[in-house]
């Protein structure tokens, strides 16, 4: 059995430090998810009504965000805007800005899709039954739309968590960076640390994302 470098994890506080890195990644994704859900829901509802120039601008924004790799967006905000506007952004703030922009775009799409998927006759029948607009949304449309919205929205959370691994590239100290530090520090005593530590990082990310996507799958199956 070759030396797998797993013993490094138990040395000192290494495992705790890795989990601390995960904490930062989760904090970034949690903040971004909350902002995205709020703004995305609003935007999704507004987008059904708008016409003309605002629609075109909105469309361009959404397409640009969707088509650019998130890493490019991170670079644009972290290196690009700081340079052109002369402000000072920490890596974490830049990450939250980018992930919120991206998440809002995705979320607004999901909301719009969920609302559009409700057949028109649902509105018409509710109206025929004498419900007001508010009641129509409260009792007829929203319960159905939320069911369609929730599974993909939860999936968005896992995508967000996975994407936070990119913040390594703009100098935020998260799981991967901590892993690099640990490997570097133990270079002499356990040269194979890279295997064990990166394996641990792999497992840590899996443990963070898997329960969330399981929940999404379960909801989807139950509500079908």
């Amino acid at each position: 059995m070759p030396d797998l470098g797993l013993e490094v994890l138990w040395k000192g506080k290494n495992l705790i430090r890795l989990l601390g890195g995960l904490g930062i990644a989760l904090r970034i994704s949690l903040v971004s998810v909350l902002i995205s859900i709020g703004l995305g829901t609003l935007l999704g509802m507004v987008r059904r009504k708008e016409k003309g120039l605002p629609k075109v601008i909105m469309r361009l924004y959404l397409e640009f965000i969707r088509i650019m790799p998130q890493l490019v967006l991170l670079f644009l905000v972290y290196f690009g805007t700081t340079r052109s506007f002369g402000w000072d952004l920490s890596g974490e703030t830049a990450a939250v800005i980018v992930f919120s922009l991206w998440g809002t775009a995705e979320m607004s799409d999901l909301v719009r899709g969920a609302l559009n998927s409700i057949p028109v006759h649902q509105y018409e029948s509710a109206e025929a039954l004498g419900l007001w607009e508010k009641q129509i949304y409260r009792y007829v449309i929203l319960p159905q739309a939320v069911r369609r919205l929730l599974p993909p929205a939860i999936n968005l959370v896992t995508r967000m968590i996975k994407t936070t691994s990119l913040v390594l590239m703009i100098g935020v100290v998260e799981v991967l960076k901590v892993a690099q530090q640990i490997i570097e520090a133990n270079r002499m005593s356990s040269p194979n640390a890279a295997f064990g530590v990166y394996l641990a990082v792999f497992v840590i990310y899996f443990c963070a994302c898997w329960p969330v996507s399981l929940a999404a799958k379960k909801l989807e199956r139950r509500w079908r």
Partner: protein
Amino acid sequence: MDWKFIAEYIPLYQEAAALTVKIGIAGIAAAIGTGLVCGMIGYYRVPVLGRIVSAYVELSRNTPLLIQLFFIYYGLPKIGIRTDAKACGMAGLAFLGGGYMAETFRSGIEAVDAIQEESACSLGLNKVQTIWYVILPQALAVSMPAFVANVIFLLKETSVFSAVSLMDLMFTAKDLIGIYYNTTESLFLLVIFYLLILLPVSVLGSILERRARYAGFGT
């Protein structure tokens, strides 16, 4: 905006874009192959293999590509599996994409009515013919939107290749920023080149999607 700088470094970006596209295509092709095989195994519930495949799908879908690449590129050599950066990029893309594609194909196959298989059987087609002529064409039409989304997603994911020192677009931009400090120009070129790669794919994807929809409903 320093246009001379931009003109001077376009060839560098062209090279990097070619590399991104090359590894992207190879990786996505491998992912499609992996996905088809895994999707079939998942659908037919092959004993043992089915278990392994579903574990693989969960693993690949619930971990970021960056972590997978780090593990393949820096972790695996320690136990004797050494890969160069290009092979690593392709392997990572195939590993990640395989999981996504498998899910897509499986749900596509599941969407085909059982009656189709029974009818094919009563017409005297054997198992392979049934899959090839009856199930797959319909399944692919159903899974086309998700398939296109996967391809674009995987192409976008290639941006993290720079982390394993592949000289892709991201790497080039970062390098130029580091050397010349021409942040705006470098990032401008970066965005333009990604648009050049991704926009045509996205347009082609939506055309494909529309075609597949026609095929699905026979109009």
